[in-house]
């Protein structure tokens, strides 16, 4: 029965490797998922505190303020219904502009300010990150339903 034993051994070893790999993958997966919330959801306290997540929408016109050190910038992100203040230290991407779409990743601080570790902006004139577009769409739908009531 030796050939059969060998085949079983190989299959068992293969399954073992796959099981190990799966455990590794799922573990890394769970600890690295980043959820997306719109400003309305953040204001409704749906976003986690102390855990990294993404927020997106439009950069509110006139809200971009740079600190004296030149590198820290504060702006407000809005989905036309609610706004959240975001602060970021570093060089902003080229296409970051007031009135255009933006997605930021970071943590919500105790004072309600979103401390961003990463800012993504759109990459050409017509492109809006789907997440940001979705957030704006949801907010507009919500507003419309309020009006018709």
């Amino acid at each position, binding site marked *: 029965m030796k*050939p059969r034993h060998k085949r079983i051994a190989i299959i068992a070893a293969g399954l073992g490797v796959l099981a190990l790999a799966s455990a590794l*993958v799922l573990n*890394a*997966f769970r600890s690295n*998922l980043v959820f*997306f919330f719109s400003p309305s959801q953040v204001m409704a306290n749906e976003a986690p505190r102390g855990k990294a997540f993404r927020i997106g929408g439009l950069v509110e016109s006139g809200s971009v303020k740079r600190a004296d050190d*030149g590198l820290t910038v504060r702006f407000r992100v809005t989905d036309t219904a609610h706004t959240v203040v975001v602060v970021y230290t570093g*060089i902003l991407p*080229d296409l970051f502009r007031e009135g255009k779409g933006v997605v930021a990743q970071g943590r919500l601080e105790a004072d309600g300010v979103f401390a961003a570790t990463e800012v993504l902006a759109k990459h050409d004139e017509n*492109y809006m990150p789907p997440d940001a577009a979705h957030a704006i769409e949801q907010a507009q739908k919500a507003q419309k339903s309020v009006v018709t009531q």
Partner: protein
Amino acid sequence: MVPEIGQFALILALLLALAQGVLPIVGAARANSAWVSVARPAAQGQFVFVAIAFGCLAWSFANNDFSVLNVATNSNSQLPLQYRIAATWGSHEGSLLLWVLMLGAWTVAVTVFSRHLPEEMVARVVGVMGLVSVGFLLFLLLTSNPFERLFPAAPDGRDLNPLLQDPGMVIHPPMLYMGYVGFSVAFAFAIAALLGGRLDATWARWSRPWTTLAWCFLTLGIMLGSWWAYYELGWGGWWFWDPVENASFMPWLFGTALIHSLAVTEKRGSFKSWTVLLAICAFSLSLLGTFLVRSGVLTSVHAFATDPKRGIFILAFLTVVIGGSLALFAWRAPRVGLGGKFEPVSRESMLLANNVLLVAAAGSVLLGTLYPLFLDALKLGKISVGPPYFDAVFVPLMTPAVFLMGVGPLARWKEASLPEIAVRLKWALGVSLLTALLLPFVMGRWTPLVAFGLLLGAWIIATSAVALKYRLSRHDGNNLWARLRAQPRSYYGMLLAHCGVAVFIIGVTLVKGYETERDVRMAVGDSVTVGSYAFRFDGVQEVSGPNYGGARGTIDVSRGGRHVKVLHPEKRVYHVQQMPMTEAAIDTGIFGDLYVSLGEPVSGGAWSVRVYHKPFVTWIWGGCIIMALGGLLALCDRRYRVSVRRSEAIVTAGGKKGAGASGAAA
């Protein structure tokens, strides 16, 4: 007039592709030699018409014909000529046309270099490639017509995205598509084998060079994309585990598994069904990669801005190709049969382990890339999976594979002896450990991760040297030069490619371990120290180019008081799209890069500036180039050409059918 010629040419190409796809395959099944012989001329005709269509589009771009919608959306009269031509494939429609053109070119290449193959096999291979062409041409004509007109014609165009106005970006898509399309040849060979019910070592020998060539192109394509992102995006990053990057990386992983699996099938006749399955999966992932970036579902700097309605056609096409080929596999694979047996410790089992690890790595990348899309499609929320996940998963899976890279070449086929291998590798292990322990101190700091990376890199190089030594020692008596020349090119190809991987690993390890980055506010005259270099900001001047205007900074770099270089980073604004863009200034060297990019102007005439020192970063791309060269060397092996000559001799002696049998003799 010209765009209409292009459109008609595409329609004619579609009709020829239909003939090419249907007649030869049916003819091969029914032994109808008239239909079988349709394959070559149909393929060549289709290529001619697709080339005409491509030429028409390129002509429209070069001549600023803004009555063509595609030209108006992606070009501009101020755009330099080379970028106007490159804009032909800068858009969704144009790049698909490029894909079809390349598919046609590869098909013609197959028709030319397959004189020694049996006619019904060539018919099936060309037929399958014809069916893929049909799919793409239908997609082009029905949903993404590059020749759509714009009336009244625009006075000028909207300009090409400034990010694409760059030599690296011009060559990256063609290289990548050469790789994707090349895997369609491997796929076609696999489907042909399933349809014919015959799969033997000679089949593997025929498909191997094509697969390796496709793999080489894909390696170069991915490398170009990474290098481009590094110098163009201004953030100094070279890999972001971005969904679009992953979409090109997964076929690469499967392709690597495939070329190793083909080695076993060719040498020992084993792994037959597994090889066929890998070929199907590699091509399916190529298609997935091609379409994922166009479906509109990705938040990514790469994603084409496109109409999600096209997604329906794409989904249908993918279902047909992937579902159909897997169904065919399930139905016909048992016919293909098993191969030679092997022991649990043997070169075959190590290659099998290599395959399992590569596939597992690709699977985990696939999970991280697609999971957010699935969740979003099921309206279960919007998530993203960050780079830490991919790093945490990929490295542990690849480590055993790297270890096997050293052991495998020394193991014998069918049955290997572990103690014997261990004895031979003692020295290599010792050298690797020593390098891992001592080299970090030369660089500055010792960290476990850096030591680990260096261990892997040194292991590959040391074991390759040992393997070569033992291989040469088997031909005792002759002088060294004769012995070196006696080894087949495929052997040197393997060693070179593996060493390329080592160079890559060393580059990644040293960059991640020792790079330094500073974002600072600099006024004129300010200086900042990064690594052992001092960067002094000397101010900014206005500049203008053909279609942009901007600011050009001057940074003086010195080290230990001695002047090294002057760097000129730029911040440009392209007139038409009013889009700002950063042009980083990079001083490239074998031992590291100095990288400076301008942020934006801040109060007091100062600027925010990003300064990097990236040691050994060029080794990342150098390693990829070496890998591709290794692959190229391997496929130039004489045995892929000798069989042609021998079978030609047999053909002249007696009949076409003899050509197939001689393949087995060679």
